[in-house]
């Protein structure tokens, strides 16, 4: 009686709380990180006034957004207008239930038996991630529509078209990894990379590129930030949002960035594994906890995101579509075919 | 830097030497900036090639031609504006309309307004000014068909002076709003402005409303 309750209720609950707390903190500091990175790219200092070296800036931002007046445009579709931020933040957080950010842990020796640090490992993990994160687009479309503003509506429409079209090549890029891993479970994918003595970015370099570009588009980041293109659509789908509702859009964007970063790490760079996990003389690297490896991989991806933002102008809508359908989709299809063929050759011809 | 008499030596300033040859010699003539300014004087410019061509090409087009400060001003009758402009563009190569504006002379007998066209020719960078005397309420032909530039400039002249340009595709107010009562650059318009009231009490000036209201009905003239 004691055991099941402990296992099925308390541990997951603790884990959920821990993941959420850490995630929200990370997201908050991600904004700080981004502002600092952009600032240094742009020969300026960035936030440096609130707290020591500006470290309390995200807290101040969050506080400001919380106490800000919460405006609802008088002609807005009230219920949908309120629903939209929830629709976008919930999937962005829900995805984290399956992301394996580290292997098993004893929580610094507190537990006698190691338990998985991630919330759960379901056998269709990657499918779950793709499916749930697609729900987020509804938040954007509905938010854009319900605002009853033409700029918001156009932002919402742009975003719908963009996310739908980029999800296809993204899916194919994932498929090529799945072919190599032979499993949909994210934990299993990492394990396969350990067993295969190879991270998947080597055979899947093209898939990695496609996945990354699509990830940028999926999260509406520069150079694909058309749904919220400031200079064209004022602020796109969240033009009319203020206060905490705006903050939810904002948080969701960063949480999604983290998801894409994590998936890049998991699918292509061996998740929480250290470099060369099977090479014995590098075993001293194991003193560094696996979570660090995971976080640094994600961090690099996120940094590239910010680098993009500091470097690129924005695509035009039709060009964006052209890139997605005319380049990425055929490329990703070809990539799947090539990888499938490669696996076929490896499994049958070489062994036979 | 010193405030005393200029001592430019030509070796140091090749540029200054050309513009002020007087300063090379010790004995004054003074350089022009030390002297009293010499204002330009108007002179007759009927023999200017463009003016002559205009007089020959368009009947009765040239009433008067004056050169002032190297700029030729041709006065043309109101009826001939379009014809003269066409002629100057097509036959004389004035392909560029630099400026179009108006001047208000409320006391003048022959007509209250001067409409000014300021033309440019690229081949030899010549400019020519056309002046048309227009009385209040009289229309003047629009030259939008000749130079597209004229469109907004005529709208501006209409807005500011109330000069009606006949044949303009879209003669609306441009800097003030539809429904504004008055023409601000007329001399009898007070500098401190008028109480339009339009923005605050839309029903006071029903034909337009404030600047944020799209005027469904346009003001006639």
């Amino acid at each position: 009686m004691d055991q099941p309750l402990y296992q099925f209720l308390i541990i997951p609950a603790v884990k959920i709380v821990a993941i959420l707390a850490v995630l929200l903190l990370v997201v908050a500091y991600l904004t700080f990180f981004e502002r600092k990175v952009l600032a240094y790219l742009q020969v300026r200092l960035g936030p440096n006034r609130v707290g020591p070296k500006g470290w309390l800036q995200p807290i101040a931002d969050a506080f400001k957004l919380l106490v800000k007046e919460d405006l609802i445009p008088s002609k807005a579709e009230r219920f949908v207008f309120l629903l939209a931020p929830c629709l976008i933040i919930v999937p962005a957080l829900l995805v984290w239930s399956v992301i394996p950010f580290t292997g098993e842990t004893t929580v610094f020796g507190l537990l006698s038996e190691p338990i998985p640090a991630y919330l759960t490992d379901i056998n269709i993990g990657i499918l779950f991630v793709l499916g749930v994160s697609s729900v987020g687009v509804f938040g954007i479309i509905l938010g854009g529509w319900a605002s009853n503003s033409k700029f918001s509506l156009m932002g919402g429409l742009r975003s719908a078209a963009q996310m739908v079209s980029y999800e296809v090549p993204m899916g194919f890029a994932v498929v090529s990894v799945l072919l190599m891993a032979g499993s949909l479970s994210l934990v299993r994918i990492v394990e396969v990379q350990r067993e295969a003595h190879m991270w998947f970015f080597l055979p899947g370099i093209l898939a990695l590129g496609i996945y990354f570009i699509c990830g940028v588009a999926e999260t509406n980041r520069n150079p694909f930030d058309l749904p919220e293109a400031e200079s064209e659509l004022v602020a796109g789908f969240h033009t009319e949002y203020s206060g905490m509702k705006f903050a939810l859009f904002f948080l969701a964007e960063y949480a999604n960035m983290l998801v894409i970063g994590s998936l890049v790490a998991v699918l292509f760079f061996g998740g929480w594994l250290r470099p060369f996990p099977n090479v014995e003389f590098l075993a001293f690297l194991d003193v560094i906890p696996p979570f660090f490896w995971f976080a640094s991989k994600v961090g690099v991806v996120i940094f590239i995101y910010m680098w993009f933002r500091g470097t690129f102008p924005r695509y035009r809508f039709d060009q964006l579509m052209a890139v997605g359908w005319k380049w990425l989709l055929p490329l990703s299809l070809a990539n799947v075919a090539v990888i499938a063929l490669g696996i076929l050759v490896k499994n049958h011809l070489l062994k036979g | 830097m010193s405030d005393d008499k200029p001592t430019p030596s030509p070796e140091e300033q090749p540029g200054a030497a050309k513009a002020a040859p007087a300063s090379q010699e010790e004995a004054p003539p003074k350089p022009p900036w030390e002297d009293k300014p010499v204002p330009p004087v108007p002179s007759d410019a009927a023999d200017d090639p463009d003016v002559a061509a205009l007089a020959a090409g368009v009947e009765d087009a040239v009433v008067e031609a004056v050169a002032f400060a190297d700029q030729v001003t041709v006065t043309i009758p109101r009826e001939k504006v379009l014809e003269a402009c066409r002629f100057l563009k097509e036959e004389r190569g004035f392909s560029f309309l630099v400026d179009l504006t108006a001047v208000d002379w409320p006391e003048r007998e022959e007509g209250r307004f001067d409409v000014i066209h300021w033309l440019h020719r690229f081949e030899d960078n010549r400019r020519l000014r056309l002046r048309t005397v227009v009385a209040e309420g009289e229309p003047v032909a629009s030259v939008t068909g000749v130079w597209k530039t004229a469109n907004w400039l005529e709208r501006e002249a209409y807005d500011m002076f109330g000069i009606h340009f006949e044949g303009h595709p879209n003669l609306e107010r441009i800097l003030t709003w539809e429904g504004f009562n008055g023409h601000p650059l007329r001399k009898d318009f007070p500098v401190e402005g008028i109480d339009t009231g339009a923005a605050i009490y839309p029903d006071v000036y029903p034909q337009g409303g404030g600047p944020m209201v799209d005027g469904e009905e346009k003001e006639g003239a």
Partner: protein
Amino acid sequence: MGGPLEPLFDVEEMELSFGPQHPATHGVLRVQLKLDGEKILDARPIIGYLHRGTEKLFEQEPFNQCIPHTDRLDYIAAPTNNQGFVVTVEKLLGITIPPRAAYIRMILAELGRISSHLLWLATHAIDLGAITPFFYTFREREEILDLFEAYCGARLTLNAMRVGGLPYDLPDGWVERCAEMMEAFPAHIDEYETLLTENRIWKKRTVGIGVISAEEAIDWGLTGPPLRGSGVKWDIRKVFPYDRYDEVDFEVPIGKNGDTYDRYLVRMEEMRQSVRIIQQCMDRLPDGPIMAKVPKVLRAPEGMVYASVEAPKGELGYFIVTTPKGSQPYRCHVRPPSFVNLQSLPVLVDGLLVADLVAVIGTLDIVLGEIDR
């Protein structure tokens, strides 16, 4: 069957009021758009939100007191505005200014041009989504504004010129400071260019966008970089030299295709040429007075005079009409380059997308202060 297909949905054009409060309209420009999806069917610029009656004010004040009003026309490049006005009045009064004054005027005007182009580049890039050049250009623009401040105490509305010359001489060390800046500046231009010129997305967004042929450009009265971008080699500084522009050596860059990208290249090159002009001016800067001998009260002969200068945005002309012995303009019309250039917006954006509208507004480099006056 037969006949055109009925649209499945109720299709209608969308009217979108782009501005007057919009991040990309560079002020209070409003563009009334008719859209089919994102395609622009019709664009109608609506201006006048910043109308202050400057031309009316000119009529009320003595010539020298008009100069502060000119600052507020194109408030990005105040020196060229001052210059245009004083050059016109000097022409009317027959004043020749001392060479030192002319050279200092040219230095200030070219600094103003650089600062205006820097602001243009910053906003144009940010309109197209590249945020970083903004901070790079503002770093240099800040230095230029500091130079202005050191010269006359103001940073934006300089009021830096007088009829007959200049109000102040250059302070000590100013020339050295300016020379130092000009020494370093071409490298900074290269820096901006590395960010944009060969950037594929930048090219995709600008090449072939907002194309206008040379004939069309002339017909629409475009001047300045938009005209030169279409390949017309025409610059007031060369054609009707004022101050001492005939004595300095510089090129007039032109484009080929008349698109946004060419106009971008033209402006980038113009900044380099401005640096050249400034360096030549500083090398030749003669000693001597900075004011011509002009009477305290300026009295003009009767007549009408138009004179123009090459402002950063195009030909900035002042048309002044005076009455006999007039101590103030009877009528002063400003020919603002932005006003005339903006007129061609509907042609430039015809059939393009909303995103291109932003690019085209940026490439015209308009300032509403001078459009609305």
